[in-house]
């Protein structure tokens, strides 16, 4: 075998603390190494061309590149080998950047470690076999989880590209958080005017099947062939018959149900249609508060429903959908701010969240757009906004900045002035984060034209002064003073948190998530919309706090990834699958039991039971081969000998 070793400088990232020339000199003496050199940027075009030339010139049949993590450029260099006519799996990488040069300054130790890692790669490569990827056909259907603005954008882009889309939305209507907004920044245009038509498009698009009031119950299979179990939650209304007329909502006697769409600020009924432009515009019954379902009495809605759509016997239903790709667009939730007892901990009715205030501002809201204090319905004259409630705060475990609260608070300050001309808005902030196009001009406008009083400092206490108004006590660090504001209404810019039980969904999709529950992207800069799991993509705030423009952009980005995936005739399967050596297999069946994907079946070979791998189902985890007592089943590219070769490369020299 003739092996070529290429030690990358990666500019100064590796060369800074590793003597790459020395490593390539050592590598020349490794067994079966025919050529070794160091190169400035192996992954760059000249770098890759240099490798292709060396393969031709020295008639190499295997390549080792010592550079960054294979998780970033293994695919890049495999393509290089393919372009040079070699089998892409006759290639190994040594990670001498993230695992060597970047984690220590000791040049001699780093150089020595790099040489060792290259030796390990060479030893493994000497035992690599050429592998041919098999092809399998793709189910050109995509599942979009979450009907917020990001999910809507992804679904519409995929549908317009001719793909069949299945959208699953947990609430009874799509529209997510954006549907709850009155206006959006920085243009102050009406939220339902720009979102409404897109929601209608979802409902009317022939390629899109919408499952509202439903959740993903389980996902199995792999890229190109996922099988998804969707749980259609019981809504006790037959949506085929329901016309959304709203008769039932008016007559329903149970008035204590929480109105989750209006963020519990307005009255709620047991049977409810979230808002006039809801899609689908259907009624749903909240089982906990429906007198019929809890006490067996009433049933008013059943009596008066013109199209007798009420069905109290309705049960949850599981539907299976076969799809080829999944886009997770599950959005975010607001932080439970009641841990801040210094702001009343939820005891004071006139201390509300920004989303509740948005409902008060909204014409389709509980007060028809007239801003009224929840306590006594009076129009507030002094509205105090408190920023960073549950963001940038280590003491409540939320050290990150939620990104768009500064912007929507400026918008709400402007809207407050529009709604109540003689009102004054006060904003307690630490730093204004307004990075987008026309964002900063927008916040300046709130201060300059709309008279919002911006006070630089946090708020320590919000309390009633016993004489009927609320005192907001904060600091003005620019003035160096403690300050107080008599507030009629306090609006908290509550921080963003990952959507409820998104860790559970991540486990179903087998993608990883960070300690706050946000899904982990493939690479923070290079693959923001992909995950480490092929065929599962991310869009919107489920990947991290972001505003509407960024979410919409990610919706389109995720859609383009899906469209790109499905543009190929067939998908190449990863050839790193298990493989049974019939001679050694004694048919004990242990591997069949341990395979998480059921990718091994028992076959009869001349009267003896043997194991056989279904290559398209095998995911290449290798659990079978470490279970097999005979070592009969080996995972290609990670066989026992290959791994042990690396072990010996470390220990024997």
């Amino acid at each position, binding site marked *: 075998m003739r092996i070529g070793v290429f030690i990358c400088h990666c500019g100064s990232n590796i060369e800074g603390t590793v003597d790459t020339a020395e490593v390539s000199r050592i590598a020349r003496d490794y067994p079966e190494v025919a050529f070794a050199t160091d190169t400035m940027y192996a992954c760059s075009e000249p770098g890759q061309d240099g490798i292709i030339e060396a393969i031709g010139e020295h008639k190499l049949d295997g390549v080792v590149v010592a550079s960054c993590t294979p998780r970033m450029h293994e695919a890049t260099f495999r393509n290089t080998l393919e372009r040079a006519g070699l089998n892409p799996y006759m290639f190994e990488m040594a990670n001498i950047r993230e695992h060597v040069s970047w984690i220590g300054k000791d040049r001699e130790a780093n150089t020595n470690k790099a040489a060792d890692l290259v030796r390990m790669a060479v030893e493994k490569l000497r035992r690599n076999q050429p592998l041919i990827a098999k092809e399998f056909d793709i189910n050109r259907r995509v599942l979009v989880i979450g009907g917020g603005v990001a999910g809507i954008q992804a679904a519409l882009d995929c549908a317009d590209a001719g793909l069949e889309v299945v959208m699953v939305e947990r609430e009874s209507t799509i529209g997510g958080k954006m549907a709850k907004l009155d206006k959006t920044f920085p243009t102050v245009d009406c939220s339902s005017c720009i979102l409404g038509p897109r929601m209608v498009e979802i409902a009317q698009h022939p390629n899109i099947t919408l499952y509202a009031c439903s959740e993903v119950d389980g996902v199995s299979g792999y890229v190109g062939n996922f099988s998804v179990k969707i749980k259609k939650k019981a809504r006790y209304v037959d949506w085929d018959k329901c016309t959304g007329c709203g008769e039932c909502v008016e007559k329903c006697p149970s008035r204590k149900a929480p109105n989750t769409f209006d963020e519990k600020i307005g009255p709620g009924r047991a049977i409810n249609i979230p808002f006039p432009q809801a899609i689908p515009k259907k009624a749903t019954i909240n089982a906990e508060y429906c007198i019929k379902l809890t006490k067996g009495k009433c049933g008013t809605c059943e009596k008066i429903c013109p199209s007798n759509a009420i069905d109290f016997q309705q049960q949850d239903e599981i539907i299976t959908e076969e799809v080829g790709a999944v886009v997770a667009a599950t959005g975010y939730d607001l932080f439970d701010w009641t841990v801040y*007892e*210094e702001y009343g*901990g939820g*005891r004071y009715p006139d201390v509300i969240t920004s989303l509740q205030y948005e409902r008060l501002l909204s014409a389709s809201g509980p007060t028809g757009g007239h801003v009224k204090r929840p306590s006594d319905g009076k129009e507030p004259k002094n509205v105090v906004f408190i920023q960073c409630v549950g963001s940038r705060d280590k003491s409540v475990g939320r050290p990150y900045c939620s990104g768009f609260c500064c912007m929507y608070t400026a918008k709400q300050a402007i809207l407050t002035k529009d709604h109540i001309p003689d009102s004054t808005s006060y904003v307690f902030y630490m730093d204004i984060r307004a990075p987008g196009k026309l964002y900063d001009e927008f916040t300046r406008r709130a201060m300059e034209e709309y008279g919002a009083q911006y006070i630089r400092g946090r708020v320590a*206490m919000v*309390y*009633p*002064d*016993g*004489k009927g108004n609320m005192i907001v006590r904060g600091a003005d660090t620019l003035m160096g003073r403690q300050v107080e504001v008599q507030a009629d209404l306090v609006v908290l810019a509550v921080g963003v948190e990952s959507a409820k039980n998104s860790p559970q969904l991540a486990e179903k999709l087998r993608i990883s998530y960070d300690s706050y529950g946000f899904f982990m992207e493939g690479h923070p800069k290079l693959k923001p919309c992909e995950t480490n799991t092929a065929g599962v993509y991310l869009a919107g705030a489920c990947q991290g706090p972001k505003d509407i423009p960024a979410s919409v952009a990610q919706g389109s980005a995720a859609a383009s990834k899906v469209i790109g995936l499905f543009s190929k005739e067939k998908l190449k399967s990863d050839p790193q699958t298990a493989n049974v050596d019939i001679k050694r297999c004694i048919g004990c069946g242990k591997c069949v039991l341990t395979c998480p994907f059921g990718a091994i079946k028992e076959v009869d070979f001349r009267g003896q039971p043997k194991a056989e791998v279904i290559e398209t189902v095998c995911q290449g985890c290798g659990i079978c081969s470490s279970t097999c007592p005979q070592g009969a089943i080996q995972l290609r590219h990670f066989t026992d000998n290959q791994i042990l070769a690396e072990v010996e490369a470390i220990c024997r020299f």
Partner: protein
Amino acid sequence: MTKHTYSYYPGCSGQGTSMEYERSTRAVCEAVGINLDEIPDWSCCGSTPAHTVDHTLSAALSGRNLGLAAKQGHDCVLTPCPSCLTNLKTAGKHMAESETFKEKVNRLLDEPLETIPDTKSVLQVLFEDLGPDALAKKVARPLKGLKVVTYYGCILTRPPGLMDFDSEENPISMDKLMQAAGAEVLQFPLKTECCGASHGVARRDLVMRLSGKLLDMADSLGADAVVTACPLCQMNLDLRQGQVNSANNASYRLPIFYYTQLLGWALGLPDASLGLDKLCVDPRPALQSISANKEVA
């Protein structure tokens, strides 16, 4: 009712300015079966002055008492006074966390401190071991009709990491006990706002402002009385109420009870054992008014 015995650290003010707190604490604990075994020959914990001079000195002054308590063999030391509680807890926690600090403290003490007993406030034991429900069953004279405001003071439940009892912003333990005793507890937003603490002598203007705010808020809420659990807060609000009135030209006549006094009264204990006569602002009118309307009701 479990007969539980604790080491008891009364605190210096209990011998003088807050003797009624000391007396009523002993009476109530006796009545509800909490056994207080006073630490023999206990000494001052140094209170605020000590830790403003040096943390090792402050820990040594508290440490001596922790050592004596450990010898008594009970698993926990009780003290009614929040300032003593903070010093004992800080000393104990700091020594438990850092060996070097413990050695520095032991170098100041006659006998080095080995095991460090746990410390709790009497309020915590009354609330957790006894509990409002058990208390309600023992009430002989419910405080029905008495509107009170519960003032916890700034260090009884703060900082949360150290004191870890009740909430640091909106504590409710005294509220629950008072409600169990029949009183009506008003929502008091300044439960943990400082009253001026030890500045009464050197910088009285600070106490006039801060205690003035507390009395003003209690008054505007229509409270009949304020209930506290700290000798210094009680002194600033009761003994200095006259000074506050003249400084802020107000005219409050708000009795400032220790919660143990009201609990004792509700349990039917004799006035003498509660030291009600020791309070500056006469509490009798308030108490008589509720017992009067009891005959009527």
